[in-house]
C-alpha cells in the first residue's frame, strides 16, 4: 500500500465525560474498513484504556492510530507526570488513581495490563516530569 491511513485525535484532559470517545470513532472506522470483529475489539479496548489513562493521569494528550499492511499501530502521547516505576505500574491491580476517580469505577489498576493483553506489542517510553508515549501494535496477518 502506498499510503498508510492515519487517524489523529486530541484527547481532551479537561472533560472526563468525553473520555473514551476516540475509541468509539476508531471502532466505527475499522468496521467500515471491514476488519474482523476480534481485531476491532482489541484495538478498541487498548485504545479505550489508554485514552482513559491519559485523561486521569496526564491531563489528556494525542492519540494516533495508523493502519498499514501489517499492523494497526496506536501511539498515545502525553506530557503528563511520567511513570516512575513501569514494572510496578504493569502489575494487575496497581493503581495511583485518586479516590474520586475510583468512585466512578475507574482506577482498578487494569489499564496498562489490559493494553498489553489485547495488543501484540507494547512499548512504554516515559520520563518522569516530561511525559509518556505508549506505542501498541496489533498484527493483521497472523
Amino acid at each position, binding site marked *: *500500500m502506498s*499510503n498508510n*491511513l492515519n*487517524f489523529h485525535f486530541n484527547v481532551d484532559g479537561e472533560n472526563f465525560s468525553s473520555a*473514551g470517545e476516540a*475509541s*468509539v470513532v476508531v*471502532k*466505527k*472506522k475499522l*468496521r*467500515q*474498513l*471491514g476488519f474482523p*470483529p*476480534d481485531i*476491532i*475489539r482489541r484495538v*478498541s*479496548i487498548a485504545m*479505550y484504556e489508554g485514552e482513559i489513562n491519559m485523561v486521569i493521569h496526564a491531563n489528556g494528550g494525542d492519540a494516533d492510530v495508523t*493502519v498499514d499492511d501489517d499492523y494497526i499501530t496506536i501511539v498515545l502521547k502525553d506530557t503528563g507526570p511520567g511513570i516512575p516505576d513501569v514494572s510496578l505500574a504493569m502489575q494487575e491491580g496497581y493503581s495511583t488513581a485518586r479516590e474520586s476517580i475510583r468512585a466512578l469505577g475507574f482506577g482498578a489498576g487494569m489499564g496498562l495490563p489490559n493494553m498489553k493483553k489485547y495488543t501484540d506489542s507494547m512499548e512504554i517510553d516515559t520520563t518522569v516530569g516530561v511525559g509518556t508515549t505508549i506505542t501498541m501494535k496489533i498484527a493483521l496477518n497472523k
Partner: protein
Amino acid sequence: MKDYKHSVSLDVSKCKGCTTCLKRCPTEAIRIRDGRAVISSARCIDCGECIKVCPYKAKKATHDPLSCINDYKYTVALPAPSLYGQFDNMDNIGYIIQGLRDMGFDDVFEVACAAELVSAYTRLYIKRTNIPKPVISSACPAITRLISMNYPMLCENIMPILPPVDIAAHLAREKAKKEHPELTDEDIGIIFISPCPAKVSYVKNDFAGERNYIDATISVRDVYFELIDKMKRRQDDEPLDSTESGMVGIGWASTGGESTAIFNERYLAASGIENCIRVLDQIDNEDITSLDFVELNACSGGCVGGAMTVANPYIAQARLQILKRYLPVSPNRPVSEYIPDEFYNENEVEYNPYNLLSEDRQTALRMMADIESITEGLPKLDCGSCGAPTCMAFAEDIVKGETSADECTVIMRMLFHEYLEQHKEKDKEQEVLRKISAIKEGKTQKPADE
C-alpha cells in the same frame, strides 16, 4: 442477510426536506435528496425516532389496518402491556379486555402473561455458567438490529429465548386450536397490538423464523380510539373480564420492569436510543463488569414511549403503577424448570457490517483516506444543508458517489462571495476604463480644479 422490510415510511407530499429527522437518526440512515428525506434500508433500525420528531408528520409507521380483524374466522388480540397505560381514569384492566372483545376479537391473550413466563425463563437462563455475560434482553427489536449492525462481539450476548409477544402468539394459537378444534390454522388470526414500528418489522421479517405465529400487527394508536368508544358504553358496569397478568408482566411496559423481574441486583436498565448506544459501547469495551442482565429499550421510558402510542411515556407509566398496585406479583409461571425448545429463537443474531466501504481492503483503505482528506476541507458545522447529517457522513457519500461536493452550501456561499468580489473588481476596472475613454474622446469635462 436478505432484504429487510421496514415499517417506517415517508409521506412525500408532507416532507419539506428539513433536517430535523436527519439530525436525530441514531444510525445516520436518513439523507435529504431532491428536497425530501430518503431512508436507507440497510441502516434503518425502525426505532421510530424520526416519526417522533418530524414537525410535518411526514414520517409514518406502517402497520396493518384495524379491518384485518375481518380477514379471519377467529381472531385473538395480543395487547402489549403498554396499551393499558394509554387511558385516563382507568382503574381496571378488565375494561380494556372487555373493550377488545366488543371491538370484534373472539379472544384476548395478554402479552403481559407471556412476559411473566419470559421473566421466569430469564431467571433460569442467567444462572447458567456457560453463557456470555451480561445477557442482553431480546425484547426490543430496534436494539437487537442495532447490535447486529454495530456490535459483532455482543451478538451472542442476546438472550436466545423468544420475546414475550412470540410466546404469547404461540400459546394463543394453541389455546384457540384446543378450544375450537373445528378451526384450521388459516382460520385463526393472531393479531398483535403494537406500540412501535420496530415490532411490526420484527414480525414482517420473520425474525422468529418458523416460530413466527403472529398474523397481523396493528397499532396501539388505532386501537385506542376504537377502544375509548367501546369502553364508554360500558363504563357504569363492572367489566366481565379481568387481567390474568400480575405486576411483573405489566411492568415490562416501562423501562426497568423486565430487569427488576430477574430478582437480583446485578442488572442495568437503559432507555432512549442514545443512552442505549453509550451503554453498548461501554459493554463492548468490557468496561461494565459484574452484570448479569442488561435491558435496553430504544424508546425513552421503555415500550410506553413507542412511536405508535398515544400517551406521554411517563404519564403512561404513572397510570400503570396504579393499575398494577393490587395485582399479584407474577401469577403466570412455567410448569417446570425446563425451558421448552419452542420458546427459543431458531435464528441467531448475526453480524451484518452494513457500513463496509468495500469488500476489498485496499479499496476500502483508499476510500477511507479520501474521506479523511475531504472531511478536512469541509466546514465541520454539521449543518445538514447538504442532505447528510454530518460533514463526515457527507464526505463518505461523496466518496461512495452518492452525492457531489458542490452540495455543501457553506462552501458554495464562500465561492459565491469570492465571485461577487471578483466581479466588483472587474466592474471598478471597467468603470475606470470607461471614464478614461470618455475623457480621451472629450465627451466629459475634466474635473474642476481644486
